[in-house]
C-alpha cells in the first residue's frame, strides 16, 4: 500500500500544480454560480431546468477531468522517461498501475466535492433546503462511476499509443454507454439470430455507467434511493474497476519499456 499511496500522492501533486486543471475547475464553478443565481420569476420548471443544466455541466467537467488526466499518466511517464528511475526501485508494475488509479480517482473525488459544494450552496440558498441523502448518493455514485472510467482509460493508455487517441476513443465509448447502454437489451429483443445474441452480450459485458447518473434525485427533489441499491451499485462499480485494472496489469506486466 505504501508504494501505491506514494505514486497516488505524486499524481495529485501534479494535478494541483498544473494550470489546465484549474481552468476547467474555475470555469465550471463560475457557470454553476451564475446559473444558480439567475432568477426567472421563481418558475419551478425553469429552476429545475437550470439545476439540470448545472448538474450536466458538473458531469461533463468531471468526465473531461477524469479522462484527460488519466489518459496522459502512463504515456507521459514513458515519454519523459520518469518511469525508468521509478520502476528501478522496489515497485511492482501492479503497484504502479494501482497508484496511478488511486491518484486520478482521488483527484476526481476532490473535484466532485468542490463542484457539488458550489452547487449545493447556491441551491440551498435559494430553496432554503438541502436534502443531504440525495446529495450524498449523487456524489457517491458519480465518484464510483468515475472510478470505472479512470480504470477504463488507464487500460486504454496501455493499449493505445497516443494519449489523445485514447482520450477520444474512451470519451466516445463512455458517452455511447451513457446514452445507449441502457437501451441495448430493448434493441436485442427486436433483433433475430446472431445479431440479437451479440447485442445482448454487449449489454451484459459493458459497464452500465448510466446507472450512476442520479441527477434526477436532486433536480426533481425525489428522496434518496434505497441504500441497498446504492451499495449494490458501489460493489458493481468497484468490481468492474478491479476487473479493468486487472486487465491493465496483465497487458502491462510483461510489456517491454525499452525505447
Amino acid at each position, binding site marked *: 500500500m*505504501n*508504494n501505491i499511496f*506514494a505514486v497516488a*500522492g*505524486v499524481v495529485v*501533486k*501534479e494535478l494541483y*500544480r*498544473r494550470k489546465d486543471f484549474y481552468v476547467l475547475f474555475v470555469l465550471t464553478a463560475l457557470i454553476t454560480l451564475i446559473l444558480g443565481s439567475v432568477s426567472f420569476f421563481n418558475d419551478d420548471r425553469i429552476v429545475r431546468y437550470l439545476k439540470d443544466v448545472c448538474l450536466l455541466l458538473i458531469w461533463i467537467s468531471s468526465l473531461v477531468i477524469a479522462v484527460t488526466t488519466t489518459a496522459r499518466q502512463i504515456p507521459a511517464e514513458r515519454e*519523459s*522517461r*520518469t518511469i*525508468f*528511475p*521509478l*520502476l*528501478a*526501485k*522496489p*515497485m*511492482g508494475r501492479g*503497484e504502479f498501475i494501482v497508484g496511478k488509479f488511486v491518484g486520478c480517482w482521488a483527484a476526481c473525488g476532490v473535484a466532485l466535492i468542490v463542484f457539488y459544494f458550489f452547487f449545493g450552496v447556491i441551491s440551498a440558498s435559494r430553496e432554503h433546503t438541502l436534502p443531504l441523502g440525495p446529495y450524498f448518493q449523487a456524489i457517491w455514485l458519480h465518484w464510483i462511476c468515475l472510478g470505472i472510467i479512470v480504470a477504463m482509460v488507464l487500460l486504454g493508455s496501455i493499449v493505445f499509443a497516443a494519449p489523445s487517441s485514447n482520450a477520444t476513443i474512451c470519451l466516445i465509448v463512455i458517452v455511447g454507454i451513457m446514452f445507449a447502454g441502457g437501451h441495448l437489451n430493448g434493441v436485442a429483443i427486436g433483433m433475430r439470430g446472431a445479431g440479437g445474441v451479440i447485442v445482448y452480450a454487449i449489454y451484459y459485458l459493458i459497464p452500465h455507467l448510466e446507472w450512476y447518473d442520479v441527477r434526477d434525485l436532486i433536480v426533481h427533489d425525489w428522496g434518496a434511493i434505497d441504500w441497498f441499491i446504492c451499495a449494490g451499485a458501489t460493489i458493481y462499480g468497484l468490481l468492474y474497476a478491479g476487473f479493468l485494472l486487472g486487465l491493465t496489469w496483465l497487458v502491462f506486466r*510483461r510489456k*517491454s*519499456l*525499452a525505447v
Partner: protein
Amino acid sequence: MSAVLEIHDLRVEFPNRELGKGKGPKLAVDGLNLRVNSGEVFGFLGPNGAGKTTTMNVLLGFVNATAGSASIFGVNVRQPIARQRIGYLPELTYYYKFLNTEELLRFYARIFRIPRREREKRIDAVLKLVELEESRKRLIKTYSKGMQQRVGLAQALINNPDLLILDEPTSGLDPLGRMKVREIIQRLKQEGKTVFFSSHELGEVETICDRVAILHEGKLRVEGSVADLVKEYQCDLEHAFLKIVGYQPKSRV
C-alpha cells in the same frame, strides 16, 4: 568474494521492425555470462548498439530476457524486491518537473520504505554529497543539465545502495561535472559499494574500474581486470578496446 550480480546465458531479442521478408528478430544480447563481485567497480563497455543498455534494462526489469537468467544479490531480477538494495542512474535523467529536489527524494525514499525520521537525514546527506543543498527547494525543471545529473545521482543514492548501476553517468557533462561524478564513484568504492557502470570515457574507466567487460554486437568479447587487459594488449585501454571490437584504421590516401 561474493557475487552481487550474476548473468547466465542471457539472450535478448527484439522484433525486427525493418520491412522485408525473411527478417527474423533482432538480436540485442547473445549468450551473455557475467559476474560482478562485491566491492568492485565494474566497467561495462562497448560501442553504441553493443547491448549494454539492453543488459541493464534486463537487470532492472524493464525488458524481458528471451532466454537465460539474471540475479541481483541472489534474487531473480523479475522480482521487485531484487531492486531494494540497488541505485540506478539512467543515461538521460528526466525527473518530475513539477517537484523540487527535496520532494523527489522524499518520494523515492518512501518507495524504499525508509522510516520518516531517517528519510530526512538521508535526504540531507545525499544533497550534501552531490552539492545541491542550496537549491533543494527549486523545481527540477529550472536546473542545468549538470545539476539534473546530480539530482539523478542523489536519487540513485537515497537508499544507501550496495550496488549502483550507472548508465553513462558522465555523458554530456562538462569536465567539472565529470570530475565530480568520478569523485563520488571513488568515494563509494572506498565505502565498499559495488558499482556497475557503462561508459564511453575509456580514460575514466581505466582510472576507476577494477574490472571491465567489453561487449560487441551483443556478445561478450573480453572480461578481466583493467591491468591484465592493458598488459595483454600492450597499450592503453582505449587502444585495447579498438582492437577488441575490430576497428581498422583507414589507410591514408
